[in-house]
């Protein structure tokens, strides 16, 4: 029987990765204004990126994670410039359906080219003993990486000129508009950041879990729950939300069942939207 501390830590480890995905989505949704249903697919692509780099050229997964950031950043910018920017002024249904189509396109292409065979990156095996408890190496290191990336993100948002612009836009887009910050360029950069976070999370996940084309689905639903929990556009809120979702998942899986844990994102979304639609956390 696992102790409560163990479950909590397990939850935090899970949640740290979910937080990356959630922060990416809240950036794209809250700042740029695009509801990206295909967000999970970029997590999947990140995982495959690390996998193929590892199995084809024995590329160190840590390097893959690092490199995934700029790669997905530019990919995200390109996608925004060519595709999603066109929907900025349209009714939200358009973005929903477009990104839905993109999601279907991406994971089916992945299935076509890479088949449904489960893949993995068995780079870190074995366990760490920590404080008398035992945790898998892959999960512990992943946690550390997620924390590192999150810290870098916050540092960037706080101190760089561009990061400040993003925060200004997410806090009050009307004011930002007047100040001339909310330009296409800004949106493109922010979208890129959001996708980069998803890709990096995917690369991190490749160390711990199996990889398959439809894996994006569970990440995107958790990401939506996280964004709703944390408040749209609220990046710290998304971080907290990610950890909460992770802990909830660990607790429910332990005490009820993994199947029941699947309901967590849906229930979270409904409960929050009904009781506290702006999210749990103030900006």
């Amino acid at each position, binding site marked *: 029987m696992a102790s409560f501390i163990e479950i909590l830590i397990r939850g935090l480890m899970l949640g740290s990765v979910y937080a990356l995905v959630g922060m990416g989505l809240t950036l794209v949704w809250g700042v740029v204004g695009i509801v990206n249903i295909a967000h999970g697919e970029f997590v999947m692509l990140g995982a495959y990126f690390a996998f193929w780099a590892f199995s084809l050229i024995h590329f160190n997964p840590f390097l893959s994670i690092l490199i995934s950031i700029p790669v997905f950043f530019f990919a995200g910018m390109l996608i925004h410039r060519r595709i999603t920017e066109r929907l900025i002024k349209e009714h939200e249904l358009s973005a*929903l359906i*477009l990104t839905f189509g993109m999601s279907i396109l991406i994971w089916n292409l992945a299935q076509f080219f890479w088949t449904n065979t489960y893949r993995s990156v068995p780079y870190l095996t074995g366990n760490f003993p920590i404080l008398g408890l035992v945790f898998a190496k892959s999960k512990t290191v992943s946690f550390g990486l997620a924390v590192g990336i999150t810290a870098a993100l916050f540092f960037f948002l706080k101190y760089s000129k561009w990061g400040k612009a993003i925060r200004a836009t997410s806090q009050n887009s009307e004011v930002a508009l007047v100040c001339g910050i909310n330009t296409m360029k800004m949106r493109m950069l922010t979208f890129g950041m959001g996708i980069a976070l998803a890709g990096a999370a995917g690369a991190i996940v490749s160390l711990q879990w199996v990889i398959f084309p439809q894996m994006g689905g569970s990440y995107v639903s958790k990401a939506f729950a996280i964004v709703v929990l944390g408040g749209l556009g609220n990046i710290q809120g998304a971080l907290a939300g990610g950890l909460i979702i992770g802990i909830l998942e660990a607790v429910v899986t332990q005490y009820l069942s993994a*199947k029941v844990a*699947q*309901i967590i*994102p849906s229930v979270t979304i409904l409960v929050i939207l009904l009781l506290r639609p702006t999210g749990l956390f103030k900006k």
Partner: protein
Amino acid sequence: MKKKIPIWLGTVALMVFLAMIPFFASDYWITLLVLIFIFAVYASGWNLFSGLTGYTNFGLAWFIGVSGYVSSLLIADYNLPWVFAWPVGAVFISIVSIGVGYILLRIRGVYFAISMVALAEGTRELFGTEYLSPITHGGKGVPFVAGIQLSTLYWAILFIAFISLLVCYKIASSKFGLRLVAIREDEQAAETLGIHATRDKILAFILSAFFVGLAGAIHFTYQNYIDPSFAFSIHLTLTPIVMALFGGVGTVFGPFIGATLFTLIHEVLWAELTILYMAIFGGILMALILFFPQGLLGWMKEKGILPRIRKI
């Protein structure tokens, strides 16, 4: 006055023709048409609510799954004849949707869309758990036989499709329909002009639930099988929406035309390109939104080929 008669004459003539189909067509064509009609009612039901009010219902599968389960279980476990089971399923989901609509329709915009997805996904997971097993047979599918002939089922869904077309036409030309559009245009302004938005939204929501639920009950009877992963699948939400988009969201005939076109294209693509079918479907979706968001009928109205009136 003169213009009205050709539309209705044409429709009635088409209906008569369609009603005769089981007498001379092969089973392949009958089943194809059954599916077209089922999805046409799904698309039209979705359009009735979302197309007019602008509240994007991304949880259509919830209506379909719940009504489908009620109806199918009544047939399978309680031997209720289909002629009663179907309406019971539809009425059940309509009543439940009053409560759900009252609660969820306070939420606007994208959030509403997401909460509807959450509802559908959550219900699917719920039906798969052990907790509801006694009723729902756990996550395992329920095969059943309703004792209905294909031709009878065909006529039933044809009739339902016709009724739903009629209802959509009536609503589009009515003040109720106009109020729904006003709610889409500017809900707050509509309210300060005396429109009881909550009541009108819920009414449209219930009507949508009823028709979609009815078609859903028929759908699973046709399949002789129901299980949670299909009954609540996102595919059942998305396909009707795409059909409505194809034909023209907010138009009356759009969803029907969209369902027909889409199913025919689907048949062709599926046969030729099975493996990449879904990927192409995704691509088509994207192209539709980027280049053709108003759908076929919307485009025709813009070009002046069709009159820009709400009744069509």
